[in-house]
């Protein structure tokens, strides 16, 4: 019987590669923060491969003679993820032992096209594994397009902007439900339920001209009406701060 539900295929992807030049995590953190501050949306949830081949020379040249093990792979992954990248794996022209070590630690090693043909053959099998992993780890495009709804959304109606932001030009009645994988904008009163970042988007926000909602939710964190007293009946946007919802006045 054929596998009707799944199929394996090789695909190539353009992935961002982060070249590390130092082992000093504090320096990396500072530089990353600077870089990301320039374009936070561009980097959000971008799948990233970390190239560590330049680290080896710095390890060798350092006075304390240490082995390859001194690269703290776990710390690098944690650091990268702290900046909201989606960590895919490590890459670089590395010795066989080091690649082995990386895999033993539970990370995937992504082969570069530059690798020699001989190496390619050796790693053909692993490359497929790595690529498949890449495929599953690539998240939803973070730059959402807009779904625009003109007119009031009445009680009992539900509008879902799948993989999009939702813009409602009108009010959302009590008993109605608006859902978006991205942000929700209501140019009217929000009296029903609004669920933004429905598929897990931490930075999703809800904007409305008049907040009288039954429920607002971002990335699974929700408020019922009673939590909205502070900005009730005013123009507000709601956002997520760590795992706490926050509301701020629009004007």
């Amino acid at each position, binding site marked *: 019987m054929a596998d009707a539900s799944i199929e394996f295929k090789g695909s190539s992807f353009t992935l961002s590669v982060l070249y590390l030049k130092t082992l000093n995590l504090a320096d990396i953190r500072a530089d990353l923060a600077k870089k990301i501050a320039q374009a936070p949306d561009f980097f959000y949830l971008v799948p990233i491969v970390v190239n560590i081949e330049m680290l080896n020379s710095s390890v060798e040249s350092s006075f304390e003679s240490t082995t390859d093990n001194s690269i703290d792979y776990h710390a690098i992954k944690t650091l990268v993820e702290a900046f909201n990248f989606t960590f895919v794996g490590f890459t670089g022209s590395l010795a066989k032992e080091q690649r082995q070590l990386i895999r033993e630690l539970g990370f995937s090693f992504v082969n570069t096209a530059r690798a020699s043909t001989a190496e390619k053959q050796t790693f053909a099998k692993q490359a497929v594994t790595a690529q498949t992993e890449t495929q599953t780890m690539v998240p939803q495009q973070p730059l959402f397009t807009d779904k625009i709804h003109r007119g009031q959304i*009445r*009680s*009992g109606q539900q509008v879902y902007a799948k993989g999009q932001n939702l813009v409602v030009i*009108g009010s959302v*009645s*009590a008993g109605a439900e608006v859902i978006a994988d991205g942000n929700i904008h209501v140019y009217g009163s929000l*009296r029903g339920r609004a669920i933004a970042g429905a598929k897990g988007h931490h930075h999703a926000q809800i904007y409305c001209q008049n907040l009288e909602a039954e429920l607002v939710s971002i990335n699974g964190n929700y408020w019922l009406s009673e939590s909205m007293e502070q900005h009730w009946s005013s123009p507000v946007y709601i956002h997520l701060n760590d795992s706490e919802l926050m509301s701020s006045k629009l004007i």
Partner: protein
Amino acid sequence: MARIIVVTSGKGGVGKTTSSAAIGLGLALKGNKVVLIDFDIGLRNLDLIMGCERRVVYDFVNVINGEATLNQALIKDKRVSSLSILPASQTRDKDALNKENVGKVLEELGKSFDFIICDSPAGIEAGAMMALYYADEAVVTTNPEVSSVRDSDRILGMLASRSRRAELGLEPIKEHLLLTRYSPKRVEEGEMLSVEDVEDILSIPLLGVIPESQAVLKASNAGEPVILDTMSDAGQAYQDVIDRLLGETVDFRFLVAEKKGIFSRMFGG
């Protein structure tokens, strides 16, 4: 072309049948040919309010099933000859109607009448959907009270999505808000939603505000639509509704509580 107007609400007991009767009779009094259809199959009421319950021989379901002709089933109003009533069946249920046959009956009626007023049953099930399906306009009857407003909102959603006009992508049903059982005194005391509150939530044009009135119950029991009671505030408010339906601009009345003068206070006016 006849204007098909559905009188609907979602919630029961808000005054759909009272309003249908008043609007039907009011339009007829202005010289229009009007037919009132009771879509509330199984809970026949319109004939009672119209005072013609003893003259029902055949009903809407008989016509749908081809057991009677329209002329046999239509009851001519004794007060105004240009008004006819198509009563509901008391013995059947709402499933007795089907879209195709209702469409045929409405088309037939459209040939000889100016207005077809469809008195919808409460709820959002088949019967209510049938009543609104062919409508050109809708009079959404609402009490100034949260559950009624919520249900009206739901019905407005249905009007925009489940009607023939919506299905064929035609110009949407023209929606009118009719606020009934309005008590300015209770609004001032904060017990009742105000006209502005309801307009804000439903955001459809206001057709009329009918004040809470003793005259309505009296009229219903007597089988004389309240619009005939020209002395009552409710009757006058319905008269304004008719004028607005016919395209006139009329100021809204009965929106503020009457201040009792010293004489009426002394003599219990």
